[in-house]
């Protein structure tokens, strides 16, 4: 049994402009200790699908309208509010993008670290404080004793993200969901935080779902990659499959549109033309079709399901076998 099984998840937002199908039939699993990346651009539903796991979708306007989420065999969608609160922070930890807005500015670091310990693990003041010190040391914060008494504004962005990671690890969860954990950070700090997360998840055997728009970030750290577009997973496979042998035109286009430091400089970039679709107006066809260089008649009428293209590698494209390799041969 997988640690996390998401099946046919649908999360919709009911707005005055219509129903936004932010997540529209997403299925994936996370095994114990595994790192799974969810990649996609703004509005593709990657964050909403992750927040849905913890039932953090605000109603109104959002609601999980279909599917199931099973975590260690338990159906999370069937839990009461009190029960899901016990899951959040204890069984599943979270790290958000903006460490300034996700830490409480009027509470000390110490208070914020000890709160989940007291709430979930019934630790007393002394035990919680000791564990908090241990956690700060674990995430590489210098002078932890002093940090406990400080407020978030005393810390730099990278330090705050380390504190967020310490909080996520506080109750020894089985799974951590990290939503764009390094997007707000500078590149040298990003490298530090990613190395830290990789090291800790391996050492402690925690599974990690990392949500990002940066294809480079996940190449090094993910065991498996799910690529999302317009509310669905359009390709899933090992990192190697996705980067070396993409089988969906959107994945291919994404890889080709970024300049790479290890490749020759090109005279022109190869962008994905057009704009992402309006999620209130999806028809029955493939939503990537208007921007796709491989689109055929069938794409307008039939939405392609995820189809096997290799061991553990699936793509939702009718022309999955006709694509070019991601790197052009140097001319």
């Amino acid at each position, binding site marked *: 049994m997988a640690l996390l099984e998401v099946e046919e998840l649908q999360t919709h937002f009911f707005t005055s402009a219509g129903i936004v199908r932010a997540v529209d039939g997403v299925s994936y699993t996370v095994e114990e200790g595994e790192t799974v990346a969810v990649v996609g651009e703004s509005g593709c539903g990657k964050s909403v699908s992750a927040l849905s796991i913890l039932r953090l979708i605000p109603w109104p306007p959002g609601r999980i309208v279909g599917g199931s989420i099973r975590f260690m065999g338990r159906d999370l969608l069937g839990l009461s509010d009190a029960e899901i609160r016990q899951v959040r922070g204890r069984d599943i930890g979270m790290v958000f993008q903006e460490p300034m807005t996700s830490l409480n500015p009027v509470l000390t670091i110490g208070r914020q670290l000890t709160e989940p310990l007291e709430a979930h693990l019934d630790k007393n003041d002394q035990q919680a404080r000791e564990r908090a010190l241990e956690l700060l040391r674990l995430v590489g914060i210098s002078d932890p004793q002093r940090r406990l008494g400080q407020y978030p504004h005393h810390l730099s962005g990278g330090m705050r993200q380390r504190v967020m990671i310490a909080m996520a690890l506080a109750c020894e969860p089985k799974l951590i969901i990290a939503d764009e954990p390094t997007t707000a950070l500078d590149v040298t700090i990003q490298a530090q935080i990613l190395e830290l997360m990789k090291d800790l998840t391996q050492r402690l055997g925690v599974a990690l779902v990392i949500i990002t728009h940066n294809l480079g970030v996940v190449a090094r750290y993910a065991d498996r990659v799910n690529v999302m577009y317009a509310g669905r997973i359009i390709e899933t496979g090992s990192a190697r499959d996705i980067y070396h042998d993409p089988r969906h035109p959107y994945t291919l286009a994404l890889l080709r549109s970024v300049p790479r*430091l290890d490749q020759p400089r090109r005279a022109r970039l190869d962008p994905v033309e057009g704009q992402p679709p309006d999620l209130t107006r999806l028809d029955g066809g493939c939503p990537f079709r208007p921007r796709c260089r491989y689109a055929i008649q069938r794409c307008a009428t039939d939405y392609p399901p995820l189809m096997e293209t290799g061991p553990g590698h699936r793509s939702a494209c009718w022309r999955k076998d006709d694509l070019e390799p991601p790197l052009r041969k140097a001319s």
Partner: protein
Amino acid sequence: MNPGVGEIEIGTPAASTAEVPAGEPLVEVRNLKKYFPVTEGILLQRTVADVKAVDDVSFEIRRGETLGLVGESGCGKTTTGRCILQLERPTSGQILYDGVDLSGLDQKALVPFRRRMQVVFQDPYSSLNPRMKIGQIIAEPMYVHGIEPNAAKRRERVAHLLSVCGLNPGFADRYPHEMSGGQRQRVGIARALAVDPEFIICDEAVSALDVSIQAQVINLLEDLREEFNLTYLFIAHDLSVVRHICHRVAVMYLGHLVEFAPTDELFDRPLHPYTRALLSAVPVPDPEVEQARKHQVVRGEVPSPINPPSGCVFHPRCPIAVDTCPLQVPALREVRPGHWVACTEVREGERPGQ
């Protein structure tokens, strides 16, 4: 084996920006300093310290080139851009634009220069007035500078600018909220072009865009450079994008210029330990390259610009620092033709620490 970037092979150049234009300088920045006072007290404010945002920076931008200015948050790259535009008055130093020192001019005398220099900002959501229609936004600079006083002609020019930037001229009647991020950034570019400038500062102009849209806007900026003979100062933190679009690159750290070189020279042969650390931290979208690569993660964080380290500001984090580094600020030296570096441990023809 190529080095610099922690074991990844840097690709050979094949871009139009491989040749650095040899023209005369359009913008010269000389010994620019910009300090922001830190004050204490409410009624009687006393200055208790200075934030040294830019501390003695000199470089020049040649006509027709795209100069990249890179560095992490707080390194002073945006402040440098704002000083060139005279949106901030420098604490000391000169900004020569076409030979004229802008820092000596009053607001009125600056007006003709403002028409020649424009800026495209990072956030296309906050840099467009939400209550103005796109057409009004683009026409505003023309109105301010008295270009096209005829309203019908002005509308015509707005339509032309929109189509130059790849937008439907019908967008003139829309409001910013009706457009996507990429479309808004195109509006910001059209607005900058409205007064026929020769020099545009792109301050993180593509950083907020999704990758598929980012490539569209980068291609647009390159096309416009050719078509209108523009000179760009391209301020950014994304090194892969900078390498793609720039002729030469200046690297800043904590208010100082640490390295300055033609793009291919800088990426093939980074000399300053900070530049090398920056390049090493950029992830490459290829799991095999990444697995094989040794990351030199630089330790620690950027110190406060209020109380920067003595001597070379990078020395507390530097892997090759020696005893003399905290004693003296290293001057920029030309170690190879056109390649300047501010590090005493770099010798011509070899890489430091090897």
